[in-house]
Structure formats: C-alpha cells, structure tokens
C-alpha cells in the first residue's frame, strides 16, 4: 500500500499537498503539511517509524496516516506467524491497529517501535485464536439444523419429497394386488369396504392383502405406522 504525495494538480485533480491512495481516492480529511517534499513520497522507511510515531503522539494526522499505512504489511506478517486463516488475520490486523491507537501514549520514542507493535499484534492474535477455539468447542455447525432454525417452513417441501420417495420405495417391493390394496386403504384413506367394492374383492380378501403387504414391507426393514 503506498501513499502518494500529490505534487501535480493536473495529474491528480487534488490540491497540492493532498494525500491520495494509489487508486486516486482522496482520504476523507487530509491535513496539509508545511514540510512538503517536492518529490513523490512512497512508503516511509522503517527507520523513520519512531519519528513518525512521535509526531503522531503530538497530533500530526498526516504522519499518523503515513505511519499506519506503512505498518499494515509489517503487522500482517507478524500476525500470519500465528494466524493462518486469511479472514481472521485481517480481523487481527484491524484489532491491532485499534489497540495501537488506544495505547499510543505508552510508546516511548527513545525505544524501537517494532517490539511495541509486535507485542500488540501477538496479544491480539492470541486473543483471536482463543476466541475461535471457544466458539468451535461450544458451537456445532450443522447446516441442516441451521436451515431449520432459520426457516422451519422451508424444510417441509424437502421432507415431503423425502417421504414420497420413501413411500414409493416401499410400494415397489409389493406385488401388484398388494400394492393396490395399500394404496387404496393407506394412501387414499379409503375404508376397507370401499376398497373391496372398488377392487371387486371381498372385505376379508382386502384385509388379507393388507396383512401380507405389511409383512412383506417389514421384511424389507420398514415398520407399519398406520
């Protein structure tokens, strides 16, 4: 990530001294710095970081933006030593920047900056990994359960489809007359008398067919649920 000094209004369309990001976007608010350099300023050298931090502690927003922009890759590298998940690593980088902002008054410019940053990054990385571990231990990720919880009605068509397939499988194991008897009495909810009339059989015959059909289905591992 680079911050570019805007040295040419015609080229960038922004006032002299304005910071722009490489894609041409201007930060929300910028502060002109009286010590403008005529040449284009890229990412500050690590040896300049303590001085930039000292200026940031004094309230120099320009120096602070420059410093944070330069620190992000370094923080990212520090975090990736412990955190291997990309999304989690990005979260930890943001947490580190926020923590740095909160405790920036504790930094002593006479000391190197990197140990200070490394300590913050390591602590945030460890916190994030602990949090992730707690979530994994206490939460169960089950997509079917989650779908049911989010939309209980949405699962019913799937259930109905699954049941229909199951019923068809059950009926496929039966001979034709037994299957017809089961379809009339169990699926079409006809009475035994009515089913006997429709199939031109006697009531005892229908009952016998039903009995044999259920026994056959039990043999194939299916119970009778009425």
């Amino acid at each position, binding site marked *: 990530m680079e911050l570019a000094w805007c040295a040419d209004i015609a080229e960038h369309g922004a006032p002299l001294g304005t910071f722009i990001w490489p894609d041409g976007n201007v930060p929300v608010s910028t502060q002109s710095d009286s010590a403008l350099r005529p040449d284009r300023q890229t990412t500050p050298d690590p040896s300049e970081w303590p001085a930039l931090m000292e200026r940031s*502690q004094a309230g120099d927003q320009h120096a602070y*933006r420059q410093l944070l922009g330069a620190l*992000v*890759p370094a923080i990212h590298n520090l975090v990736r030593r412990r955190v291997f998940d990309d999304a989690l690593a990005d979260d930890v980088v943001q947490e580190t920047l926020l923590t740095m902002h*909160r405790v920036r008054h*504790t930094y002593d410019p006479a000391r190197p900056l990197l140990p200070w940053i490394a300590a913050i990054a390591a*602590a945030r990385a460890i916190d994030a990994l602990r949090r992730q571990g707690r979530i994994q231990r206490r939460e169960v990720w089950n997509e079917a359960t989650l779908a049911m919880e989010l939309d209980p009605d949405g699962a019913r068509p799937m259930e109905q489809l699954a049941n229909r397939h199951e019923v068809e499988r059950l009926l496929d194991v039966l001979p034709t007359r037994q299957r017809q008897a089961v379809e009339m009495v169990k699926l079409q909810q006809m009475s035994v008398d009515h089913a006997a009339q429709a199939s031109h059989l006697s009531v005892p015959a229908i009952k016998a067919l039903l009995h044999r059909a259920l026994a056959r289905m039990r043999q194939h591992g299916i119970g009778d649920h009425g």
Partner: protein
Amino acid sequence: MADHRMLIDSLSQSLAPIRRTRPPVMRTLCWVALALPSGFLATKLIPTFYPDWTAPGMGWAIAQVGLALVLGMAAVMLAFDTSIPGRPLRARSGAVLFVAGLALVWLAVCAGNMLASPQLDFNRLGAGVYCYTFMMLAGAPMIVMVILALRQTRALHPRRTLLVAGVGVAFAAAGLLGFCHPGTLHVADFCMHLAAGATIVGLTTLIGRRFVAA
C-alpha cells in the same frame, strides 16, 4: 490482504495530541505518595495499636516493615513497567528475581520472628482477625488506586499485570500493618497475614481485569 484504508482514515481523523506515559519510577513514587497515606487513613476505622519501638524484639518488626514496603514498591513498579507493550515480564527477569529474592528474605525474617516470639495457643478464637481486617482496610484504597493507575496504560496481559500489582499492594498493606503490630509474631497471626495478602491479590486481579484490559 484486505483493505484497511477506511480504518486508517478514521483513526487518523480522530487523532488528538496525547501526553506520553511517565516512566514507571515516577508513576510508582506518585502511587506511593497517594496510596500509602490513604491506606493508613482507612485503617482508622478500627482501633489502632501503637507498638513500643524500644521494646526488645522490635528489630524483627522494623526489618519486616522495611522489607515489606520495599517489596510493595518494587512489585508495583514492575507491574507498571510490564503493563506497557513490548516490555514483557520475561524480559524483566532481573527485577523478578530481585522481588522474589526479597520476598524470601522477608519470609526468613518472619520465620525468625516467630521462632523468637512466645507462641500462643493456635486454637485461640479470633487469632489474627485484627491483622486480617487491618490489611484489608489498608489494601482497599490501594487496590483502587493501582487499578486506576494501570487503567492509564492498560495492559495486554491484564491478569499477569494485576497479579504482580496485587502482590505489591499486599506487601504495602503488610508494611503498614507493621506500624500497628506488636513486635512478636505468632503462627496463627502470620497465617492471617498471608490470607489477607492472598485476598488482596485475588481481589486486585478479579476487580481490575475489566478495567485494565487493552
């Protein structure tokens, strides 16, 4: 790598000048100047015993008081120092060894005092309760002040930092107790001193964790 520009812009916008944290030595001296008198004043809630410093055996008491106060200050300073990022406890092994060594000397002095003192019946009801109460009263304002002091810097490892700070407060309270304690030391009494110290360390860690975490 995600784009953090928005966050950086937001943080830069909200940047204001800050006053840098003072060195741990200065912070410790300020804490001692405020906390010790506050702790002593808090003990006025109960009747105070003033020992006869010229009585025989008071040498042990004087040594205990001196060691306890030095230990208290050293531990609190260590807590202030290690609360700053980049200054871990393991990098302060010299200071840790100093505090640990001094604590052992303090224990040895207490043991010597106990051996030299006529021992009461251990089962005497209420043995050491006054001392426990005294230390808790003395420690209460000191706990609050050490937590407030640590809140200024926050701590990346709050439990560890508060543990060390709590040890400092406990020894400071023990030092104050020495000004209102007879020269003799009994086993039951000493056990209650240790119990009060442990309570102070526990309370400092439990109460301060939320306020001190970075």
